[in-house]
């Protein structure tokens, strides 16, 4: 059995274990948000590109 060697700062067992307990939730939430952000970013770029092109053409 190996023990975690952590750092000079005691992270606190409860604080450490809570993070492990909610890890799945945090990862899922981040993935979903990233997906929506990327999608929104894609459309923003697309439309701003169209606007820029429009201006150039106009």
């Amino acid at each position, binding site marked *: *059995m*190996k*023990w*975690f060697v*952590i*750092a*000079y*700062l005691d*992270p*606190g*067992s*409860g*604080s*450490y*274990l*809570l*993070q*492990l*307990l*909610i*890890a*799945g*939730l*945090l*990862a*899922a*939430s*981040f*993935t979903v*948000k990233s997906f929506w952000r990327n999608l929104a970013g894609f459309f923003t770029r697309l439309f701003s590109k169209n606007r820029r092109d429009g201006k150039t053409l106009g």
Partner: protein
Amino acid sequence: MEKLSADQKEAGSFRDPSGFLFYRNGALFRQVNLSYKEDYDCLIRSGLYQKLAERGLLIPHEETEEKGLQGPVYKVMRPEQIAFISYPFEWGFSQLKDAALLTLEVQKTALEHKMSLKDANAFNIQFRTGRPVLIDTLSFKTYEEGRPWVAYRQFCQHFLAPLALMSYRDIRLNQLGRVYLDGIPLDLASRLLPWRSRLDFGLLIHLHLHARSQQRFADRPIKEETGKFSRLAFLGLIESLEKAVRRLNWKPGRTEWGDYYQATNYSEPAFEHKKDLVADFLSQAKPASVWDLGANTGFFSRISGERGIPTVAWDIDPLAVEKNYLECRGRAEKNVLPLLLDLGNPTPALGWGHEERRSFAQRGPADLVLALALVHHLAISNHLPLERIAGFFARLSRFLVIEFVPKSDSQVKRLFLSRDDIFPHYDRASFEAAFSRYFAIEKAAPVRQSERILYLMRTLQTPLL
């Protein structure tokens, strides 16, 4: 800042084995210990240091050829010095919130460079030219995927708990930070917060469940088999904390001093004249640093700040400090630092051996102290003898600009509405006699269309600290 003699270790810098601060010939240096070599090299080579320093998120430093002070040394660096070291319980709500967001921004940037913050101590954040900055260059370590954030507990105790208490319960609860130097215990924060704070998902997890988890798993050993914390989970944690911090706001009610300038008895010409006199006295004294005591929202601090003088604007009222900070932030002011202080009970020396955090007076003297519309509050509301006020001010400053407000002034009359006049010696002659024990009165100018007198004084003797 107190200048220390040659080769003296900074008393508050002893916890982290990676290095420490020391003073040599009045200059501040940071020794990087040999044990921190790998992490320090990673900080520099990964480009993280450069990125953070360029964005103003981390204090810049230069590596020197100086000798180390003790132990196996890797480098000695000279960090840019901060004009005034302040403490989190002296900050207003938005200052603490900005410091929390800065910490999370640094952590996000560190993760992009495969590094992570190994502590999240609010005392490691200082205000530099008006904006928060991380001053501990040795706070980074190489990120090892699979491990949770070591500094999670500290972040919640130092930032999230006080912000939530100030936002949900009472702004004055940031004073708990003066007692709990390693942040507010989460079980205490959880008990003090109202039930409705559980409806905020971030606070529910990071404060309430966190506190329960600490109680339940206290002292349980952590084994490698216990579980993994993926990089995505880590990013999710930082994002969740950021969201929780951003949602916290403070909606102040009316406090004692927040509308002081509207409630003042000054006529327009009197106010203008006072402003000119303050500017004139500053020109004469040419101070390198100013402390404005009882600064309110910082109107007069700005006269000094606009001349490029680092100015600390102290006030007892959290709303005045908050308004002042928001104005400084909005105007991108570089020289005014608003801070909270009860001058009747100023910040004491704190921590181990009373040496980790310096008292209010130990962080002086300032070149010049402004004490405008203040002496009547100290002498009458706080019952302080004039001589003791003069004695303390002489410890704080080399020059003093002070306003005497006589009993006939309507603001002083207001103070007597609810108390007996037991101050037979509160008059101009006694004031000048008391202050002349410690100061040379260089100028005494009556403020036009008022009964007040503005003085420029020079300190004669500094009472022993």
